[in-house]
């Protein structure tokens, strides 16, 4: 039994350079890196020193606030560098990989008999826990809390994002194991959303509540689905996972091995042959970037999709949570009378001499230009058209900007993550940094109310 959800508000951003559905094996990376910014709000305490050897799946560091929460190494090798920033904050951990990979094989719990506590401590110890994120606050889940439900979105609507149906092919066994494990951690349901007409492996998985979802972006964002299925109330906790991370959890639960392998979509108009690559978390992006080739020298390389990803460089590494790498042209050039002449080659949500409404399916080659300067909020009613959540986006953003905790709480900040505001940020006429505003609001709320 599945339930249908149809999202009406939103906007699909069609870009050129979608990944072709073939998988190549990426060249093995020499150095792997974990970027600590990927783990928002975690203060790391190192377990090994620079220069020491480590096995794949062996803990690198733990969470200062929760000693049980281990973060493990994706590969075996030597921890060659701990890159530190201001006030000796750890930024990046770099591991020089061995030629022969050695894995830690953990003793797996019996999925049929083990209780929630056993599963929980297993995932915490073996490095599977960081894949579980929670709302409120959009951070790694607090193990001491019990979620009222777990949400997985196996429907991608973000521009050029990896197609979950494709990357999850033949992974039913792992997914089923992960679902069985996770179901012991919540008394509630595990909600999984798939595309309406998709041939998702989730169609045959037991123990989940399957939702068939359709509509434009942000229908595929888990925040949209939570809001439509079972919104987060004050005090409640829900967990979210990406479907590809479910596969890793499943393998960890079945074999005891932390297998950092992942299928990544390399996409974007700059890429000559956009397609999928099999690689590992933390691998050098250059190991597969140049296999596909790039069309120009200067471009923006993004860990993730163009709306929510983080900026990286050709020396960068694949992020912990990312399964898409996008390359688009940099837009640091002037455009003569760009503000008043008719626009045919860019996407717009208005029709103010912008003509993207004529061809809703046309694919665009957007660059990173902001197409205008930062301004105060002026226009109203535009965000609501692309924001399907039952929340007033403009009012919530303003509450976050003025740090009004009561208002933030009442207007539903608990329910959202920065990514839910990626589309309003995209269309924002005042070019305000919505995701940053929401992130700062969430951090403040968490700090004040814990």
């Amino acid at each position, binding site marked *: 039994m599945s339930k249908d959800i149809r999202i009406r508000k939103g906007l699909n951003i069609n870009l050129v350079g979608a990944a072709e559905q073939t998988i190549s094996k990426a060249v093995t990376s020499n150095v792997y890196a974990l970027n600590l910014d990927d783990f928002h709000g975690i203060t790391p305490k190192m377990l090994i020193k620079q220069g020491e050897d480590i096995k794949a799946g062996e803990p690198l560091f733990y969470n200062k606030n929760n000693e049980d929460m281990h973060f493990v190494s994706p590969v075996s090798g030597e921890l060659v560098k701990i890159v530190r920033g201001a006030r000796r904050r750890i930024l990046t951990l770099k591991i020089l990989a061995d030629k022969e990979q050695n894995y830690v094989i953990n003793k797996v719990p019996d999925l049929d008999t083990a209780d929630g506590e056993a599963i929980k401590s297993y995932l915490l110890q073996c490095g599977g826990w960081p894949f579980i994120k929670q709302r409120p606050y959009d951070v790694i889940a607090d193990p001491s809390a019990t979620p009222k439900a777990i949400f997985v979105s196996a429907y991608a609507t973000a521009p050029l994002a990896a197609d979950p149906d494709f990357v999850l092919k033949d992974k039913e066994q792992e997914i089923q194991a992960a679902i069985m494990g996770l179901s012991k951690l919540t008394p509630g349901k595990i909600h999984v959303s798939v595309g309406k007409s998709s041939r998702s492996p989730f169609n045959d998985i037991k123990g989940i509540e399957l939702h068939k979802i359709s509509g434009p972006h942000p229908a595929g964002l888990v925040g949209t689905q939570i809001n439509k299925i079972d919104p987060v109330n004050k005090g409640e906790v829900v967990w979210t996972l990406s479907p590809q991370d479910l596969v890793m959890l499943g393998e960890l639960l079945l074999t005891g091995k932390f297998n950092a392998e992942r299928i990544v979509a390399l996409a974007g108009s700059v890429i000559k042959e956009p397609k999928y690559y099999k690689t590992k978390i933390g691998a050098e992006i250059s190991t597969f970037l140049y296999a596909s080739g790039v069309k120009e020298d200067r471009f923006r390389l993004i860990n993730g999709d163009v709306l929510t990803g983080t900026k990286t460089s050709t020396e960068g590494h694949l992020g912990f949570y990312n399964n898409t790498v996008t390359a688009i042209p940099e837009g640091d050039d002037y455009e003569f009378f760009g503000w008043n002449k008719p626009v045919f080659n860019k996407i717009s949500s208005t029709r103010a*001499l912008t003509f993207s409404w004529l061809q809703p399916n046309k694919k665009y080659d957007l660059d*990173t*230009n902001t197409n205008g300067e930062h301004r105060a909020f002026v226009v109203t009613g535009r965000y609501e058209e692309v924001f399907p959540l039952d929340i007033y986006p*403009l009012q919530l953003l303003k509450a976050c900007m003025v740090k009004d905790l009561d208002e933030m709480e009442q207007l539903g900040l608990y329910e959202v993550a920065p990514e839910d505001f990626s589309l309003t*940020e995209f269309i924002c006429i005042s070019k305000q940094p919505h995701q940053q505003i929401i992130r700062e609001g969430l951090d403040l709320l968490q700090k004040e109310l814990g």
Partner: protein
Amino acid sequence: MKEKLHQLKLKYQGKKMAPAFNALHTFLYTPNETTHSGSHVRAADDLKRTMNTVIMALVPCLLFGMFNAGYQHYSAINGFPESFDLFEHFLTWDNFLVGITTILPLVIVSYGVGLAIEFLFAVIKGHEVEEGYLVTGMLVPLIVPVDTPLWMLTIAVAFGVVIGKEVFGGTGMNILNPALTIRAFLFFAYPTWMSGDKVWVHEAVERAGTADAISGETILGSLAQGSDYSYSLADMFYGFIPGSVGETSTLLIILGGLFLVFSKIASWRIMVSSVVGALVMGLIFNGIVDAGWLPEYSKFYALMSFPYWQHLLVGGLAFGIVFMATDPVTGAQTNKGKWYYGFFIGFLSVMIRVFNPGYPEGVFLAILLMNVFAPTIDHYVVRGNIRKRLKRFKTATIYPKTSDEVDSLKTETA
């Protein structure tokens, strides 16, 4: 050119005059700014494009106003043509010449003074020049009588921009519509220049008391005095009537409004609900007259018996609804709130019109009043959303944290 300007921009970066330079630079070229956080790509429109769209919608009204200035002027001298021909009597060089010599200075003064103040504040406060005044500067000459003295306009614009907008923090922060603040200032400071039968026709003031005296009263003015007017319905709709520069042609205002709604720049909700509000109030007044509750000698009789839907054709109601009520900054910001906000603008406009015999026009007062109430309307709309969330909260399933249990056990044993 592009390179030279880029070098200049780098040279002035961080200097005091940078905002002034950037304002001019960004007019020529969309800046080379790229995304830093969040979305790496952005949609095509910015505030300049938005404001530009509104100005495009206003240009037909401005041009029509120029021809109409001449038409009203010559018609007041020679009498209205018996058989009106658009090209022979209206779209003539003579008419346009009168218009351009009287109205272009208004436009130049409005933009000159307003933008000068905007630039000054931007430089002092070190922020970029915001585009809000582009529309305000265009609206101002369209909502004043044709012969408004330029010194008067200068003072009013300075007042409106400083007190109406900059003290609140500039574009996006103001509570009252700046263009209407300017109009209100003119009205209360110089009432003799804003009403009566001398101000709506070019040179009427100068010729007053001479043998060549001319005059022209607006339809609302005639109605307020209980006298007749000689304009047909078609005149009202097309706009061949005396009035403020840009407000007369309902046809062009409707076209501008449709353009703004189609381009998704202005809110159709506000426009529709304002029209409904005006019609409702008009119907109520018509009903009172029909019911015979109002004696014919009442000073309100003429205005109250005026057919309800014709309120939309005369005075500044249509112009106000399309171009002023829809200002997103000072209007209601929630979609639901916009319905209430618009409705009361239409409703109150007609009400003030009828009950204000001294000055039979209420649109600007109604919009300013609703500007003040817009945050309150939004507050209650948003409260509704909050209440819904609180209601949901009652059925929340909150599980105790495992650490809580441990702590409570500890306290029990201790």
